[in-house]
């Protein structure tokens, strides 16, 4: 019978209980949804890496010879090793498309996941193409594509569409950030397909012989295979814990090796992992907020229900119902609703949010068979939520349920400690209007309700600031990175093995605004951190800013490090850092003379002059220019032409997806604020009904009473806005700091106008809902309201 009563009570207070249900549902849906997509990403990648045997180590060198590979295979714990020649060419099409070409001898490590077509076969002529790229560019199995490389043209049939575990995150250049799969992709071919004539040409060039006949005479029985170079080595290690050992051994054994990278440190692996961790922050912050609101709603709703049902509780007690059963009955309200919301959230979250997000993510990251997977943590959080809501319900009702029945049956009058309210009759308060005094006293009598009201509306304001603020911050990031720091239109990456002749031609055409990036290892106690040095000779094409965003110049007395790197590693100006260039043993000690700020890359910077003062030769690898190069696809000696605007729009694309989420956030903020105000409004309204009825009897007009009523909500809105605006900033900042990995450095940067929007938005939400509630004043029936309080 009590169950039936509960069911009907819920029905009669539907809007209130729906709030609790919705908040628990949304909170759990968001949490389990986001968790399930993160867990799904983790799981599907784990399976992918495992089944396709992702390499454990990847080594880079100008060339890995037959002997080198034999040496590596002999190292303890090495299961297998294979080498690869990776170069970048251009696809022959009317669009500007770059293709990374990988020539391999076998495919036992980081094997192809064949979506369509056949698996790798060294003897087959043709290529295996990046499935994502093929999709975006509508290339089908059996099509023939042409790739240009340094004057050579390769024409190959597509034998298979593949996904490869070391190309999960694959971009043209580190400044591209976001893989679009439209203008960049990878292909794999047998090493047999590498143009033999090109090998010979290179060999002749190296030998300094122009005439082929003379070369043939000089090098008898020329076998092009002896002249092939392989710049990558993939190594399969038996157990994970032996990776470090093998890495050190390779560095020892092979003198010319530039870098040996563990799988988890590769860009592909680490970026994917970073993306997963990013979700964790959002997931925690937003779900937490919803659950917080759910708890607020439980407190307000249950307080109201229990207060309203005081006499019913008394009656049940008088009838002889045991306290335990009555408690169970009222706690049941919270428990069943939370349980229902949580279960539904657990089902809907992974099904919708989880799968939508994972599909969205796997549009960019190349992982097959992605599916949202419910994590145990989702269940645990759901269980905890139900428990917390139940407990909160219990504590809310406890006071009423503990009283003895005679007391419960008596109508409760607000307890007024006259002392506390005395101040409202003195000083500045003396001349306040009746309405203001009334509200002031009402607020002090109902502190808990007022505080909850402020908390809820503050939450709404914070979400609005956060929504608008993330928008601003990301736009600022775009502007900073692309307009402030990049003062060039094109960045040209120079080929590694360029000739002096090529270089001279380039500088004649574009001027000598260049830079070089050196891969280094910085020694920090026992640990060595991989990093890079940007050597600047760009003559203003690449700019640097300080903390405030003002332009600064590097100087020739030492190195600059980025602020974030300094704060993560604890570097200060005046400290010395010790580092060596990859592939070379010599250590340098350089003094930090300044800090600069970079949103996207955390590294070390120095001038060309300072580099040379250390006795290192400056060998530029990039040229900057403002010449219009649109439509230019190939420049002699240049590996990659990068258009700043293309980079910018690529990043802007990514931000567009986020904008959808932000709009959702802003809408949710409004709903949230509205729900809280409405909920508390109804609660306070029930409490005040008797007083309003009395005012009505005395002859107050509805309008006057409405004014008094709305006044209090306006005060709460104003206080909440004052608290919410700065807190919104901190929340946005926190999200950026937590969500982004160590390589990023951009905090919240919110425009004044966004604060104005948020404040107005909060106020409008508060005002609209207050107005809605105030309409009830007109409906107060004086007779029943007053009688009910007899």
């Amino acid at each position, binding site marked *: *019978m009590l169950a*039936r009563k509960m069911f009907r009570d819920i029905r009669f207070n539907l809007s209130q209980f729906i709030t609790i249900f919705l908040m628990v549902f949304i909170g759990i849906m968001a949490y389990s949804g986001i968790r399930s997509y993160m867990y799904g990403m983790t799981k599907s990648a784990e399976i992918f890496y495992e089944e396709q045997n992702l390499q454990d180590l990847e080594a880079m060198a100008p060339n890995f010879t037959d002997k080198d590979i034999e040496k590596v295979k002999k190292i303890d714990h090495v299961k297998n090793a294979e080498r690869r020649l990776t170069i970048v060419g251009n696809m022959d099409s009317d669009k500007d498309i770059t293709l990374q070409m990988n020539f391999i001898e076998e495919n036992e490590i980081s094997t192809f996941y064949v979506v369509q077509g056949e698996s790798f076969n060294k003897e087959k002529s043709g290529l295996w193409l990046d499935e994502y790229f093929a999709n975006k560019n509508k290339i089908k199995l059996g099509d023939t594509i042409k790739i240009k490389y340094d004057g050579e043209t390769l024409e190959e049939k597509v034998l298979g569409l593949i996904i490869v575990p070391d190309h999960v995150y694959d971009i043209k250049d580190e400044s591209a950030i976001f893989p679009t799969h439209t203008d960049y992709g990878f292909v794999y071919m047998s090493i047999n397909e590498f143009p033999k004539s090109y090998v010979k040409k290179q060999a002749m060039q190296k030998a300094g012989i122009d005439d082929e006949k003379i070369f043939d005479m000089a090098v008898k029985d020329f076998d092009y295979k002896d002249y092939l170079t392989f710049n990558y080595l993939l190594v399969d290690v038996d157990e994970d814990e032996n990776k470090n050992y093998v890495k050190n051994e390779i560095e020892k054994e092979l003198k010319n090796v530039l870098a040996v990278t563990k799988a988890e440190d590769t860009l592909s692996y680490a970026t994917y992992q970073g993306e997963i961790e990013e979700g964790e922050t959002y997931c925690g912050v937003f779900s937490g907020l919803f659950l917080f609101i759910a708890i607020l709603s439980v407190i307000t709703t249950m307080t109201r229900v229990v207060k309203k049902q005081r006499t*019913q509780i008394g*009656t049940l*007690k008088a009838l002889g119902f045991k*306290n335990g059963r009555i408690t169970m009955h009222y706690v049941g309200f919270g428990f069943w609703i939370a349980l229902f919301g949580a279960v539904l959230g657990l089902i809907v979250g992974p099904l919708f949010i989880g799968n939508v997000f994972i599909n969205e993510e796997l549009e960019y990251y190349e992982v097959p068979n992605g599916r949202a997977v419910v994590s145990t943590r989702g269940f645990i959080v759901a269980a905890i939520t139900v428990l917390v809501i139940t407990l909160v319900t219990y504590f809310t009702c406890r006071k009423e349920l503990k009283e003895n029945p*005679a007391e419960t049956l008596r109508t409760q009058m607000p307890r007024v400690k006259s002392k506390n309210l005395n101040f409202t009759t003195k000083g500045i308060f003396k001349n306040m209007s009746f309405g203001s005094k009334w509200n002031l006293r009402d607020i002090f009598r109902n502190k808990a309700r007022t505080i909850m009201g402020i908390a809820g509306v503050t939450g709404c304001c914070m979400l609005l600031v956060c929504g608008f603020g993330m928008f601003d911050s990301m736009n600022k990031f775009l502007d900073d990175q692309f307009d402030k720091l990049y003062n060039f239109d094109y960045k040209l990456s120079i080929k590694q093995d360029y000739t002096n002749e090529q270089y001279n031609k380039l500088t004649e055409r574009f001027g000598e605004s260049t830079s070089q990036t050196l891969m280094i290892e910085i020694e920090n106690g026992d640990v060595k951190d991989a990093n890079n040095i940007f050597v600047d000779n760009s003559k203003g094409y690449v700019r640097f800013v300080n903390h405030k965003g003002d332009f600064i110049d590097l100087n020739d007395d030492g190195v600059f490090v980025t602020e974030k790197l300094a704060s993560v590693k604890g570097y200060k100006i005046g400290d010395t850092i010790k580092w060596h260039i990859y592939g070379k043993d010599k250590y340098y000690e350089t003094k930090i003379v300044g800090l600069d700020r970079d949103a996207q890359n955390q590294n070390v910077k120095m001038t060309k002059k300072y580099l040379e003062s250390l006795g290192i030769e400056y060998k530029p690898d990039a040229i900057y220019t403002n010449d219009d190069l649109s439509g230019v696809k190939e420049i002699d000696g240049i590996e990659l032409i990068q258009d700043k605007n293309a980079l910018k729009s690529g990043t802007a694309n990514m931000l567009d997806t986020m904008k959808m989420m932000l709009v959702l956030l802003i809408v949710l903020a409004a709903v949230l604020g509205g729900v809280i105000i409405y909920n508390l409004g109804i609660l306070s309204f029930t409490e005040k009904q008797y007083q309003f009825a009395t005012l009505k009897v005395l002859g107050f007009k509805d309008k006057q009473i409405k004014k008094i009523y709305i006044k209090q909500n306006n005060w709460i809105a104003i206080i909440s806005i004052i608290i919410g605006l700065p807190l919104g900033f901190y929340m946005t900042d926190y999200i950026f700091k937590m969500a982004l990995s160590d390589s990023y450095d951009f905090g919240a940067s919110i425009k004044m106008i966004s604060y104005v929007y948020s404040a107005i938005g909060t106020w409008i939400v508060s005002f609209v809902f207050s107005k809605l509630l105030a309409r009830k004043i007109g409906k107060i029936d004086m007779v029943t309201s007053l009688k009910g309080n*007899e």
Partner: protein
Amino acid sequence: MQELIKFENVKKTYNIGEKSFNALDGADFSINKGEFVVVLGPSGAGKSTLLNLLGGMDKVTSGSIIVGGKDISKYNDKQLTEYRAENIGFIFQFYNILPTLTVLENVELVDSIVKNPKDAKQILKEVGLEEHYNKFPNQLSGGEQQRVSIARAIAKDPLLLLCDEPTGALDSKTGVEVLKLLKKQCDANNGENTVIIVTHNSLIAEVADRVIRLKNGKVESNTINKNPKNIEEVNW
């Protein structure tokens, strides 16, 4: 006649803010089994307090209350709950029926607390509500609601029926109907049932077996009505 209830120097003190006041200030009286009792007194005399204490809804400050030979003033909360469930039927001035349960459900509610409840439908028929089983309380008149409340109390077949101003919110004609029902309950069960009515309407005293008058928390008089009138005989 067998003595059922005995109040011995019962005091009940309420603290309101810094002041305290005695709602009952040493009340002494006794009531016999099967009596139809009316407790009279002006407002503030301690009538409701007396009823609450007797019904096990509140605890004495001092003194003792013996019901059926047992001192219920020594009972803890759990024992009091049991005492209420097994022995007491309450009828309130404002009926206190649960608004979200139907008429029938309100009466059936007691099925889950007592061992041998009476049949809910049968009782509703006896109080003349057989047409209204599935109505909600707000669809009923005041007199009908009070009858639901009586039906609920009777369904427990209680030893003691405690009524706090049962006719206070009703017009006189409906009031008479309600009183008749209460009297009927008192006479049922071979006259073993005891009914106590708290009221400030002295006319009701004319039909009572025993009249207790309270004033300022003390018993002013406790008289036995030798010739109680028939309910119809009273000039309402």
